[in-house]
């Protein structure tokens, strides 16, 4: 099987599957080792971008998925009556960003940072599949710990958690005050 054929098959697989398809699954199906499939997929992503194709391939934690490009949104929208797609509430988004950076984290720890209760936000996020329970802490009350999902990565267009925007570091300022007080 030459590389062109492999690429064609992968494209077909991604089209049919629709959801993110794992590297492992692809490699098993086409019977090519993962390392090589990964390289081919990387090439495909570049080629799709280079040729300005209407579809692109995104990678989420070694899962691959086809999707449209955001810049074509205005055209796609003409297929339908325009409607605003709901965004997350500020409360949910704040809660989510705390979880994203500090996972695994308990509800209590989140509430300590935000200074308000988060039950509703957690519930929304869980229903939307952006976070999930990652288990329980072995201490009094066995509190549930939360973390983000692959859907979270997709929702924000991140490849891995390392692509999260860097938290603004306030440490420099902190050392500033010490100098001031001396």
């Amino acid at each position, binding site marked *: 099987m030459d590389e062109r054929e492999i690429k064609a098959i992968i494209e077909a697989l991604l089209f049919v599957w629709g959801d993110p398809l794992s590297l492992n699954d692809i490699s098993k199906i086409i019977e090519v080792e993962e390392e090589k499939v990964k390289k081919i997929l990387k090439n495909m992503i570049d080629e799709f971008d280079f040729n300005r194709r209407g579809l692109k391939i995104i990678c989420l934690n070694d899962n691959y998925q086809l999707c449209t490009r955001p810049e074509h949104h205005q055209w796609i929208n003409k297929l339908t009556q325009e409607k605003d797609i709901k965004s997350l509430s*500020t*409360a949910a988004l*704040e809660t*989510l960003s705390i979880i994203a950076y500090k996972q695994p984290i308990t509800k209590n720890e989140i509430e300590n940072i935000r*200074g*308000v209760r988060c039950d509703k936000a957690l519930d929304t996020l869980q229903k939307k*599949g952006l976070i999930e329970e990652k288990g329980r802490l072995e201490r009094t009350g066995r509190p549930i710990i939360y973390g983000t999902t692959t859907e979270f990565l997709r929702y924000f267009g991140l490849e891995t958690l390392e692509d*999260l925007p860097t938290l*603004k570091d306030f440490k420099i300022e902190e050392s500033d005050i010490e100098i001031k007080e001396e």
Partner: protein
Amino acid sequence: MEYKIVLESFEGPMDLLLHLIDEAEIDIYDIPINEITEQYIDYITKMEEMDLEVTSEFLVMASTLLEIKSKMLLPQVDKNDGEQLEMEEADPRLELVKRLVEYKKFKYASRELRNYEEIQKKVFYKPKEDLSIFTKEEEELEQIDIDELVKAFNNILAKSKGKEPLMDIDKIQREEYTLDECMEKIKRKLKYNGKIDFQHLFDNECSRQEIVVTFLSLLELIRMRYVVVYQEENFSDIIIKIRK
């Protein structure tokens, strides 16, 4: 004539405090606690006047502010030992400042994520093709021997052995895991891929009780015809899948 003041809405006391600090353009590390406390209390009074619900969190913060204010009024004593005071003791504001700085970080991060969200909202995905017509019927539970399931269950139980003391029979313990909770948990786990490996239903840290209840919930879900379980071949892993 009645007139309305538009109050910005805040995500809670921390949010409100940050807003007041930003507004006053003051250094977060050197908060004029007097002014800020006054403004803060002003604000929640206004909220009350407007029949907005002032949740207890806002009141807790108000009392924290007042506490800091009163501590700052007290003369600093106890330096006779020549020992330097801890920062916390030295500045009653420090604890609050730390929390504000921490909160601010995530507030900014969430704004950043909001931009990402805006872009990603413009992206479309294709739903998965309905492949069920190609699925062989005999893959369903009817083909799996219940013994296989019990065997797999015993394997999981064996793994967790020794992780907890024997149950104390004298005491009746509260049910930590309800069937409903566990069924929800399984459903959530299935939500992503539509299927899951039997082994992955259980965390490594699972207690015996959690395992038993999870197993019961699985049986219940099978009975409700919400999931099917199947094996690719003899002795391979048991897969749980949402029934379409």
